[in-house]
């Protein structure tokens, strides 16, 4: 197998991988620090027969990719804080109508306009709960440009498999920094396509559970006439407003698509955890600072390891609960006022959980993490 190496930014790797994964439609609106994904999509997509659209705003961008996906496209948009806030309304439709879409999301310092060019991790909870109502969502947080590449491919595959919106969470720094990465050969990964109906068109019920919890999806124009509403709907997609059982069953099936498939969806990395007495939980690019701190701490004889959820949502809570059992303390290192902290506490049992946070647009330096660690042990 030939090894191809390239120097790429996170945003370049994301766009390159998306096209490798089968993306043929992109709609977006310029926003720092995600803009390069739109720029590159506009240049690269038509070369492979794909389509790029610059929409009037982020509401329209999210709407357009859902429309394109309904017509059979693998579709993505890219955004950051303020734009992501605008996307929530239609993101809810993607979750409700079970239309596969991917969002490349470069986090920047918030709140509001915040600092557009600086990284942060202030949107971990927005990614999970920005959409109103109970709904399924998957979010992956790569830690390197190379992992942006592989996780982007996985994001498309997860969206197609589960008909759930998938968010690729990077930050302003990972989006813009360059690393030398190996471009995987297409024989090394699978590109998953959504399950299609096989019944005669007149028998097709677009939201009927085939026993897997994930109904087959037809594309507009392929002979299956289907209708979908963003209202609670029956298996024909038609709104039903006076059926408590159907309402409850629909929501349970929607969220069950993720909750019943954790084994396949969840991924995480454990670093030096075997003999660890202390564990630091961290996601994304920041986890590399944390690993540096852990290496330094180990030189001083402190037995500490790292637990890095790669899927932030669903959060790998069961594995963390197992790891927490024999730890003296857990630490959560994050660039916000404490978001992952609350999730970690749910998995920690009786093990104390300590926050290491810095919320100023700067990556947390290994030295800062090490100092905070030593103060607590």
């Amino acid at each position, binding site marked *: 197998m030939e090894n191809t190496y390239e120097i790429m930014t996170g945003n370049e790797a994301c766009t390159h991988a998306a096209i490798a994964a089968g993306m043929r439609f992109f709609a977006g609106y310029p926003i720092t620090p995600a803009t390069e994904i739109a720029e590159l999509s506009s*240049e690269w997509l*038509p070369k492979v*027969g794909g389509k790029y659209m610059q929409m009037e705003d982020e509401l*329209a*961008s999210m709407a357009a990719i*859902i*429309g394109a996906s309904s017509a059979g496209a693998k*579709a993505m948009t890219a955004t950051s804080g303020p734009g992501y806030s605008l996307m929530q309304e239609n993101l809810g439709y993607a979750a409700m109508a079970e239309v596969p879409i991917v969002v490349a999301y470069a986090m920047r310092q918030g709140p509001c306009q915040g600092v557009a060019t600086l990284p942060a991790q202030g949107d971990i909870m927005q990614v999970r709960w920005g959409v109103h109502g109970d709904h399924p969502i998957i979010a992956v947080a790569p830690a390197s440009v190379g992992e942006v590449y592989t996780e982007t491919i996985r994001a498309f595959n997860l969206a197609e498999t589960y008909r759930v919106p998938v968010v690729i969470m990077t930050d302003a720094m990972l989006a813009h920094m360059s690393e030398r990465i190996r471009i995987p050969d297409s024989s090394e990964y699978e590109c998953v396509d959504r399950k299609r109906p096989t019944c005669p068109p007149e028998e097709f019920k677009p939201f009927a559970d085939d026993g897997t919890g994930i109904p087959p999806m037809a594309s507009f*124009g392929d002979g299956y006439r289907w*209708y979908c509403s963003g209202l609670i709907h029956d298996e024909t997609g038609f709104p039903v407003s006076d059926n408590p059982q159907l309402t409850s069953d629909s929501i349970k099936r929607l969220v069950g698509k993720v909750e019943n498939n954790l084994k396949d969806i969840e991924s995480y990395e454990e670093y030096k955890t075997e003999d660890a007495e202390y564990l630091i939980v961290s996601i994304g690019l920041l986890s590399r600072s944390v690993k540096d701190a852990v290496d330094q701490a180990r030189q001083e004889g402190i037995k500490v390891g790292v637990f890095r959820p790669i899927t932030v949502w669903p959060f790998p809570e069961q594995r963390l609960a197992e790891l927490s059992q024999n730890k003296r303390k857990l630490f959560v290192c994050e660039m916000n006022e404490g978001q992952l902290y609350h999730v970690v506490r749910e998995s920690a049992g009786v093990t104390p959980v300590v926050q290491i946070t810095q919320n100023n647009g700067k990556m947390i330096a290994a030295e800062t993490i090490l100092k905070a660690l030593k103060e607590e042990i």
Partner: protein
Amino acid sequence: MSEKQHVFDTFLRQDKLPHIWCPGCGNGIVINALIRAIEKTEIDPDNVVIVSGIGCSSRANGYMNFCALHTNHGRALPYATGVKMFNPKLKVIVVTGDGDCTSIGGNHFIHACRRNIDITTVVFNNNNYGMTGGQFSPTTPLGSKTKTSVYGSIDTPFDICSLAAAAGATYVARSTVYHVNMLINQIAEGINHQGFSVVEAVCDCPTLYGRLNKKGAAPDMLLGFKENAVMKAKADTMTEEELKGKIVIGNFAKRVDRKEYTAQYDSIIESAKGGH
């Protein structure tokens, strides 16, 4: 009509009827016109996609037997744009209301007009928000009473057709639910037109807008449309004063000078593949 099925048998989802609209509502007449227009154009029903937003009018596609998305309030056009852009073979029709299209969806509307993508938009204009109980919309006439303008509306209304034409829509027409044949022809022309087309169907809402403004029952409102309608060509010769309370019907734009959007993008693909 012995063997051939009636168009309503095949184009309406009979199992979803009766509809949710009030007695006398004009929305059914617009569905009738839309279905007859689709029949008239002889397009393949499997290639029709009808996209709607939220509101009374946006329920229309649920009753029609085509592919359809019932989306979020105001967002039908960008959803439809994604559908059409990815697969230009599809005949994409948007059903929307005055509030859905020109208030919450106003920005999407002017940009769809500007882009000139081949989508046919049918705006059910009943001059108020019906589904939420009759509040004023961007087309409620000045001085009209609604649930949120009990002292009379002071918000100057939009003229949907002038707005669409000014924003660059290449086919723009208006009719009313009284002038059904004209409405059928306009929708059919809009579907056949290669570009962004807007057909405004002035529609009665006897339960709310009509009742609150003492316009009588549905038949009275329809007769009002008949009496107050003025053809565009004649209206162009009338003064502003003479046009007060009138409904100008007919064609507002019919242009062939602008290229359709997906066709333009096909050229981009061609040159990108050619390495230019």
